[in-house]
């Protein structure tokens, strides 16, 4: 891949690939629409209400050849945070910096001469869950892989382009490469389509890829294969990943193998962050503990013994993101919530930025939490 000069980093400094500081994202419905439709309809559509706080005051850093997994349920804000990280969504407040440069400033041309919006867009790529939606059904794999190269490297000649695509297919185990290049998406299996989508993002040699639920739609037995591909590509190209998942077993696999971190999200907040080992074997936040409890064991005896376990959650209703609970957002569901949790919102505590931290007063042995009454008439255990 030495035939072109594309693999040079645009900016070479000591700043992290990406850093997010106090990022919040709110969605507000357009009130002008709410004005022209009847109130009953507006109410049914949920219009004109309070904004949705999809992400609330999140800070996160992603380094060189790093992996950060965002895990959470639907509505936790993990996808919104991911999209904000790569500049597809503007933060309502806070800043997102690529190698120390604020992405919004770069887009406004404030760093012209050093860094342009196009550089940032090329450096931060995305791979989606649904490869069917990402690939054009009417075009061959060759033409779909050539497209981003034509767009970003218009000076690259045909031979270089073809060589680059074929080399990438071969190195990622898609062989015979020449045969695959002439196929259409419907002639590929789900796993192969996801490979192509990953290769297409990787051809631009980005610094960071947002991998948004890239293995969720695949057969369980293919998930390891795709995660291994991402890890192999990381080794070859030094790419960092922001990997979004709702599944703790997948999160643990890729974070552990890459020596990365897992950040657990709940209702727009990161409630715990740490290494795979720390999150799986020593979860601190009650929500992380509940996620671990809910992860199904492979051992059928253990599975049968635990299938009738009552849920340790105090409420099965998902909270309303327009009107999040006061204090700690997890308190209505938390089996260990005390009075103080209904009033005060805990920050991530327990260490430095890159250490194991959880947003729970239980991590502070001298906190007033311990003198505060349980809101459920006593703490409940979370079976682990």
């Amino acid at each position: 891949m030495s035939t072109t000069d594309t693999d040079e980093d645009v900016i070479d400094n000591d700043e992290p690939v990406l850093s997010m500081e106090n990022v919040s994202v709110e969605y507000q419905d357009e009130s002008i629409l709410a004005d022209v439709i009847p109130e009953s309809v507006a109410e049914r559509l949920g219009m004109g209400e309070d904004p949705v706080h999809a992400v609330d005051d999140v800070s996160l850093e992603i380094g060189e050849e790093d992996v950060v997994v965002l895990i959470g349920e639907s509505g936790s804000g993990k996808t919104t945070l991911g999209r904000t990280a790569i500049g597809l969504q503007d933060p309502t407040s806070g800043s997102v910096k690529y190698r120390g440069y604020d992405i919004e400033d770069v887009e406004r041309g404030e760093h012209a001469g050093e860094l342009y919006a196009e550089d940032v867009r090329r450096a931060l790529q995305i791979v989606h869950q649904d490869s069917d939606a990402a690939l054009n059904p009417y075009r061959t794999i060759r033409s779909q892989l050539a497209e981003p190269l034509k767009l970003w490297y218009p000076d690259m000649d045909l031979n270089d382009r073809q060589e680059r695509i074929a080399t990438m297919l071969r190195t990622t185990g898609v062989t015979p490469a020449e045969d695959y290049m002439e196929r259409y998406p419907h002639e590929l299996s789900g796993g192969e389509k996801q490979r192509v989508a990953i290769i297409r993002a990787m051809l631009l040699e980005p610094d960071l890829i947002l991998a948004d639920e890239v293995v969720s739609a695949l057969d369980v037995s293919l998930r390891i294969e795709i995660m291994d591909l991402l890890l192999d590509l990381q080794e070859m190209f030094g790419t960092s990943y922001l990997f979004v998942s709702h599944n703790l077993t997948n999160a643990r696999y890729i974070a552990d193998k890459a020596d990365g971190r897992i950040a657990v999200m709940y209702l727009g907040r990161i409630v715990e962050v740490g290494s795979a080992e720390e999150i799986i074997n020593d979860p601190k936040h009650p929500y992380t503990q509940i996620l671990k409890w809910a992860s199904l064991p492979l051992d059928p005896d253990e599975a049968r013994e635990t299938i009738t376990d009552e849920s340790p959650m105090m409420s099965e209703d998902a909270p309303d993101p327009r009107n999040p609970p006061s204090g700690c957002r997890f308190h209505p569901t938390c089996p260990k919530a005390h009075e103080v949790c209904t009033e005060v919102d805990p920050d991530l505590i327990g260490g430095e930025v890159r250490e194991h931290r959880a947003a729970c007063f239980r991590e502070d042995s001298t906190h007033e939490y311990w003198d505060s009454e349980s809101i459920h008439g006593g703490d409940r255990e979370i079976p682990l």
Partner: protein
Amino acid sequence: MSESEFATDRPQEERDTILEVRDATVTYEMSRGQARVLNGVDLDVYRGETLGIVGESGSGKSMFASTLMDAVEEPGLLQGSITYYPEGADPVEITELEGGDTRRLRWEEIALVSQGAMSAFNPTKPIRTHFEETLSAHNADKDAGMDRARSIMRDLNLDPENILDQYQHELSGGQRQRALVALGLVLEPEVLILDEPTAALDLLMQRSILRLLYNIKEEYDITLIVISHDLPVVSGFVDRLGVMYAFEFVELGETRDVMHEGAHPYTRALMRSTPNLAMGVDEITTIEGSTPDPINIVSGCSYSPRCPIADDRCTIEDPDLIEFEDDHDVACFYPDEARDELPVKLSQEDSK
């Protein structure tokens, strides 16, 4: 936990077959040739049992579910026999039923809740209408039927007064999935088939649905068939487990035996490729090679191209599914070698 608690509740001699599948084959004529998407399957489903079926996409597991109701879509051709044994009545050959009889069998005797719960309700009608129309299409008493529907919904942790008046888009994924299970049960079928019952659900909802399904199975006296590509989804509550590979069963037995003493190399590879928290990340491995093509089924054992212990015999002869230990069938010439050479670790204490 004692073994007897885990195994099928009744002793073997009392096992009573409710569905008997013999040499079931489904073929499609395609421009590339004939696709064989179910390949000569023999299987007995026992009355009152919970049977799990696992396999990769395209292994034939959903096709198998369709054949049980003679619901293979045109232009697919089903050959072989499927016999249904109603309690205290004459057996019925499902493949010979016509029109109204097929329709009657399909909801009143055998009900299927498919994956893709998103598309199963008509978006323009409230949930209640689906229950009412199902009851009236089968000439069932509407009042008694709706009472039953409400009771089933409560058992599934749904508030019927709230859910029945809503449209599908107003329900969460978990509510929609449970409402579909309730609809499948409203005509009191003898057999309920659940195809990927927790697909696309969040972790916590998946866990809660599995508990509800387990309780439903205990509460309603039904035969339950659960299909999934995700082994841990079924392993906690099925009595028996069938593993499908390349359009046929390669292993079948009590769940405990199949998982702790899996004898087919594919079964063992499938367990090792399932992401889980008990194994070390380096012990979790992919299954090498590509999935089988229904048009060019290889000669010999269909798993032989991917099998680490296959030898010449495996590429020539196709092993039948035979009883290798009590109530444990496997389609492999070398089950002992598979156990010795392909270690699987199911829990942190387990070193097998």
